[in-house]
């Protein structure tokens, strides 16, 4: 589904990603973990095509297409979804209208039926139930005045509506208390199918107790320094990132050789 080869990317001419290799198959859950500033969010934004994130070398194939050549909206229409770490407020635009506009744009590009407000409302109500959010939320302006938890749930609701093939979740757990975390994780699990895949970007291991990854990758200083099974996350929980940082920056651990 996604094949990233030696991906390098810069923001404001500062290299952030320094050679990422990652392959995700349908049905899989991959977790990318790393300390602050390691490039986790940059990876998510580069894959989603955010302006200002410049790919300097490498490639990313998504369902056989050159992902990096596609416009952000075309990536979305092709089934790539990004759950934002910091969801953006769109004042005055009602969430249900926003979602319908997105849903119809995606449907149209796939030759599927665009839904009128009534039909869409029926679909939205089912999704609202699945994700277990307050139905009133869909009548409010997108993320405007939402609490941190509501914003995160709203991202999951959008994912439920757009039914992406590949969902990149950028810290869906940050700022959530234990109960909210469990509920959000449950919703994410409910949306899993054998055909879709998840790329979960997180600083902490705790969400992985609920959304169990097939593979865990440790991202340090723009490189994946170690990959493994779900136990790798537990190791990080216990021992922190220090050991991995030293491995990534050998010059910090020992004097530079002449």
């Amino acid at each position, binding site marked *: 589904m996604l094949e990233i080869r030696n991906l390098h990317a810069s923001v404001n001419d500062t290299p952030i990603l320094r050679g990422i290799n990652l392959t995700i198959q349908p049905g899989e859950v991959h977790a990318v973990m790393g300390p602050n500033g390691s490039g986790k969010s940059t990876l998510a934004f580069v894959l*989603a*095509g*955010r*302006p*200002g994130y410049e790919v300097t070398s490498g490639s990313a194939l998504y369902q056989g297409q050159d992902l990096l050549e596609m*416009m*952000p*909206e075309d*990536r*979305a*229409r092709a089934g790539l*979804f*990004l759950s*934002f770490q910091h*969801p*953006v*407020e*769109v*004042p*005055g*635009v*009602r969430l249900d*209208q*926003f*979602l319908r*506009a*997105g*849903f119809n*744009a*995606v449907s149209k*590009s796939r030759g599927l039926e665009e839904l009128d407000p009534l039909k869409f409302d029926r679909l939205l109500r089912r999704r609202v139930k699945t994700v277990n959010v307050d139905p009133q939320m869909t009548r409010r*302006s997108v993320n405007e005045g939402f609490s941190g938890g509501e914003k995160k749930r709203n991202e999951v609701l*959008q994912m439920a509506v*757009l039914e992406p093939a590949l969902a990149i979740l950028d810290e869906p757990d940050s700022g959530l208390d234990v109960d909210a975390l469990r509920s959000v994780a449950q919703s994410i699990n409910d949306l899993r199918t054998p055909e879709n895949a998840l790329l979960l970007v997180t600083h902490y291991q705790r969400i992985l107790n609920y959304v169990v990854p097939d593979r865990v990758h440790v991202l340090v200083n723009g490189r994946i320094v170690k990959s493994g099974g779900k136990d790798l996350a537990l190791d990080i929980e216990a021992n922190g990132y220090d050991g991995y940082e030293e491995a990534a920056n050998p010059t910090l651990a020992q004097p530079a050789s002449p």
Partner: protein
Amino acid sequence: MTIANQELNTIAAQEYRYGFITDIEADVAPRGLNEDIVRWISAKKNEPEFMLEWRLKAFRHWEKLQAEQQTPTWANVHYPPINYQDIIYYSAPKAKEKLESLDEVDPELLRTYEKLGIPLEEQKRLAGVAVDAIFDSVSIATTFREELAKHGIVFCSFSEALQKHPDLIQKHLGSVVPYSDNFYAALNAAVFSDGSFCYIPKGVRCPLELTTYFRINTAETGQFERTLIIAEEGSYVSYLEGCSAPMRDENQLHAAVVELIAHKDAEIKYSTIQNWYPGDQDGKGGIYNFVTKRGKCAGSNSKISWTQVETGSAITWKYPSVILQGDNSIGEFYSVALTKAKQQADTGTKMVHIGKNTRSKIIAKGIAAAEGSNTYRGLVRIGSRADNARNFTQCDSLLIGDRCGAHTTPYVEVLNNTAHLEHEAFTSRVDEDMLFYCNQRGLSMEDAQSLIINGFCKEVFQKLPFEFAVEATRLLELNLEGTVG
């Protein structure tokens, strides 16, 4: 600069779509302004004596203001001094005879209207909209006259009203906006050439949306129209004006005056879609839209509501106001003002509370793109006898790109301590984050922008009659086109 930002900055590239010139012979006044020109205009229109007297008083007052250099300078707009002697104050398409029906209207004119998207012929059939179209200075044709006449409603050009209903005009003219009100109001009073007149008798609910369409055609012409609407006790009328002008390199002056009078229990809803030529990318040409609009809630329980969508003009200087004289009267102002390229807008409202339990509501939305400058200026005045007056003001700004400006200048004067005032304001930016968020949900750059803008303007668009809400939405989209990467 990133890609999205470049896209945002090309918004102003949208060209003006109504910039054609109609080739019709015009009956034109000599250039410049003096007492003789005022007399010439009045004579041309065969006006009653009181009208000429009023014009001359206005002209003398204007001359005095001109001599004292009392042009308003407080607004946040910048332009070179206007040479008032270099303007043509009257231009009428030459008509051979008086027009009785649409069939007699110059086909060239009708084609112009069709290009503007207001096919009069069509509208005759499409019930619901009556049109009084002002071309340069003279009203061309008024539809639905008979239908309206059945209800005793008078809807005609100002010139015609002067001939047929001089008493009504003499009684009300200048009662809301006196000629001495301000520099441009004085100028308008001296030289106004036509406009619309509307009279709704007691207890009548006007069954149609009344529409006037203004268009400036002749080069270097000023358009000075004057609208007077009188709603008698218990009546209701909804009125809409639309405006456009051809593309010309010179700046053209538009100094209109609108007076509304709502008697006891009457309601007037006045909507404007203004799309005058805004000038080119570099700020060359365009209309100076210096307009005085004011309504008086004369009777108790009366209501006046202004809704405006301002997308055109090089400079907009406009403050549709309500004088809340009658007890329990209501004044409302809903506004969307868009400035792009080098457009400047200084617009807002005045709510003057005089009667008891009077209420006013102000919702002003300013959108600034490219190098546009947008200022909200509003006054809420609660008089000493206006017990329990209430005002709610919300003025929001939306910035597109990083070279535009938005300013908010609210004035509040309260002379009665039972008053209750609320003020809200926020500024938001259509930034890369917001656009990218929408893109990530599958929306194109254009759809994203249109969604954001419409969301921002929603409260105002909801106040427009349905078909005009659609037009307003389309107009904003047209004006902000050019962002596809």
